[in-house]
């Protein structure tokens, strides 16, 4: 399947480096300004403005839709994006647009993501779009400029890895747990140099939103990209979306359906997991690979044979303020964040809302829910989810990246401990000295009520 997409986009090849055509380019306020500036300096033009779509998400405030509500430097970045998009005739979903939101949430829901496409963005979580059977990956700002100027990228062909998740998930186990279990198994560099194809019954039975959660965190395993072959679930999701093909939809489906891996195709590497072995997962450390099941304990550095690993565990425990052998369910929290490009879609909010319905957030916890887009927000409000959250004591915010990377006004304070549905638990990621535990939406919601982690499977 990867080969098919690659070959379909190969413009030319030269001693191991290939020029690959890019179908869809997504941009945001943080990693694009220098690319536009450089285009101006070199007197180059945007080759195909209609192939690029923009939003502002990273440093917008989720408390206000006023650009100036954020700090003045962030406001300059947003205004620069508006200016660049206007000058170059690029469609922008800014804060005045009802469909603004996190780039990896809005592009699929607007129907901009199709199977077989090459999709890039100056953001590592571009791998999300692989859920549709697209080859989607994050790039740096120089490459953003390269795509704007040439609609292509120079790439070295990656290796392929199959990650097969066999069988059925247990009740209360979510797509987030699958991907955390995968990263726990192969490590944060387990897939470096590879593109991952996720296969198996447990993957196949996921909704599009679940698939997006899994592909979103491929980058946390080091992968260049992660994808899932398209099927009826994919086609049904795309049908009727704003930018989906209308008149000739069946013709597109026929083409899209050809992006499957032929039986007997070989991968450079294959990893197999059994879905029934996956419990709700919780990260205890400062890297997404430092993760265990909720019933487990914080590991002991002395159990590591490799001195670098031992040092990493010791460093993580010191930063996280945890003891080896401590039960995950004994970890108390004071912050809960439900949101991010990993887990801020309507199904995530439904599961979180159903978890907290009729309950109250612990008096020791401050909890926020940040829908991924204007559309998710409106849908949630139409279903009354916002009321459930607010009555339980959550803050109900406007769309944005929010506390996932804390480039905005949603930031942890030193010593805060947060259950977060986002994708990175790096030191200081959510705020200097802040401690992040990555979990799925139901686990985060239950943790907000109890003020500590609970095993969602046995909690009522």
């Amino acid at each position: 399947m990867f080969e098919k997409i690659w070959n379909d986009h190969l413009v030319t090849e030269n001693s191991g480096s290939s020029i690959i055509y890019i179908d869809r380019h997504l941009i945001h306020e943080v990693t694009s300004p220098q690319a536009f500036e450089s285009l101006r300096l070199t007197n180059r033009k945007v080759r195909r403005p209609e192939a690029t779509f923009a939003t502002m998400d990273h440093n917008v405030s989720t408390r206000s839709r006023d650009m100036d509500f954020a700090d003045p430097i962030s406001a300059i970045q947003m205004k620069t994006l508006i200016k660049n998009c206007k000058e170059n005739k690029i469609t922008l979903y800014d804060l005045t647009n009802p469909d603004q939101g996190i780039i990896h949430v809005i592009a699929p829901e607007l129907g901009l993501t199709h199977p077989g496409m090459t999709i890039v963005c100056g953001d590592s979580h571009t791998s999300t779009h692989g859920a549709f059977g697209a080859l989607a990956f994050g790039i740096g700002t120089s490459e953003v400029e390269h795509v704007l100027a040439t609609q292509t990228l120079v790439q070295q062909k990656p290796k392929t890895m199959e990650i097969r998740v066999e069988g059925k998930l247990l009740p209360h186990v979510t797509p987030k747990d699958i991907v955390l279990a995968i990263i726990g198994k192969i490590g944060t560099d387990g897939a470096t140099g590879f593109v991952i194809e996720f296969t198996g019954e447990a993957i196949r039975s996921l909704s599009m939103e679940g698939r997006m959660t899994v592909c979103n965190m491929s980058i946390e395993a080091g992968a260049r990209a992660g994808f899932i072959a398209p099927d009826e679930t994919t086609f049904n999701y795309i049908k009727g979306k704003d930018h989906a093909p209308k008149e000739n939809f069946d013709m597109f489906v026929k083409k899209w359906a050809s992006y499957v891996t032929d039986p007997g195709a070989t991968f450079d590497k294959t990893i197999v997991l059994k879905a029934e072995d996956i419990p709700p997962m919780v990260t205890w450390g400062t890297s997404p690979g430092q993760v265990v099941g909720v019933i487990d304990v914080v590991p002991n550095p002395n159990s590591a044979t490799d001195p670098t690993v031992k040092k990493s565990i010791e460093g993580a425990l010191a930063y996280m303020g945890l003891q080896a052998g401590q039960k995950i369910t004994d970890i108390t929290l004071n912050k809960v964040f439900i949101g991010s490009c990993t887990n801020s879609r309507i199904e995530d909010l439904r599961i979180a809302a159903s978890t907290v319905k009729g309950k109250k957030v612990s008096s020791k916890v401050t909890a926020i829910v940040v829908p991924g887009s204007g559309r998710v927000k409106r849908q949630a409000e139409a279903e009354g989810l916002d009321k459930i959250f607010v009555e339980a004591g959550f803050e109900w915010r406007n769309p944005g990246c929010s506390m996932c990377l804390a480039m905005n006004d949603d930031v942890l304070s030193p010593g805060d401990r947060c259950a977060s549905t986002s994708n990175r638990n790096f030191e200081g990621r959510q705020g200097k000295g802040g401690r992040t535990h990555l979990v799925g939406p139901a686990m985060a919601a239950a943790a907000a009520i109890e003020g500590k982690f609970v095993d969602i499977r046995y909690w009522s």
Partner: protein
Amino acid sequence: MKAFTTLNGVAAILDKANVDTDQIIPKQFLRKIERSGFGVHLFHDWRFLDDAGTKPNPEFILNQPRYQGANILLARDNFGCGSSREHAPWALEDYGFRSIIAPSYADIFYNNCFKNGMLPIVLPSEQVDELFKYVDSTPNAKLEIDLMSQVVKAGNGKSYSFDVDSFRKDCLYRGLDDIGLTLENEKSITSFEKQRRSKFRKCLKENKGK
């Protein structure tokens, strides 16, 4: 882009695996719209005791007098993982590092280095270990990197050869502009676009004929 031919200088060591781009350049410094001036914020949360960056943390290795002026960074596995922010190589380069030596890198970071005249060198863990020991135990330890012959020479006479993709090597060695190079293939890109459009039209026609 600045060309990279040979580099001779002081190496600093950062003995930590999985150093992520959030550590290399924390997010509060990504709000600028320029490419320059990120070096003062490199490793900010480790390097400084205060938010303003006025009190250097004496414990942090790059603050040690012996590593001042270092232009080569010795690092561990999976260096530069996490966010795609090119601000990470911008910060390293602006601080003074032109080359990094580590057993492995995250893909996007690795790629971003080459776009900024920097050479990320991959050596086997054992060799990186040897270099760590050499630099750590030798005052004023120096390394010499020669891109053309793909060799790192340590001051103790040992040398280590490394691999690098020939296209990237050529671009870096000659300081070539990537976009300019791709635009030399303008005709191929245009004909690729034309071919796709005609394929699509053919498909539409067949579909309508049904």
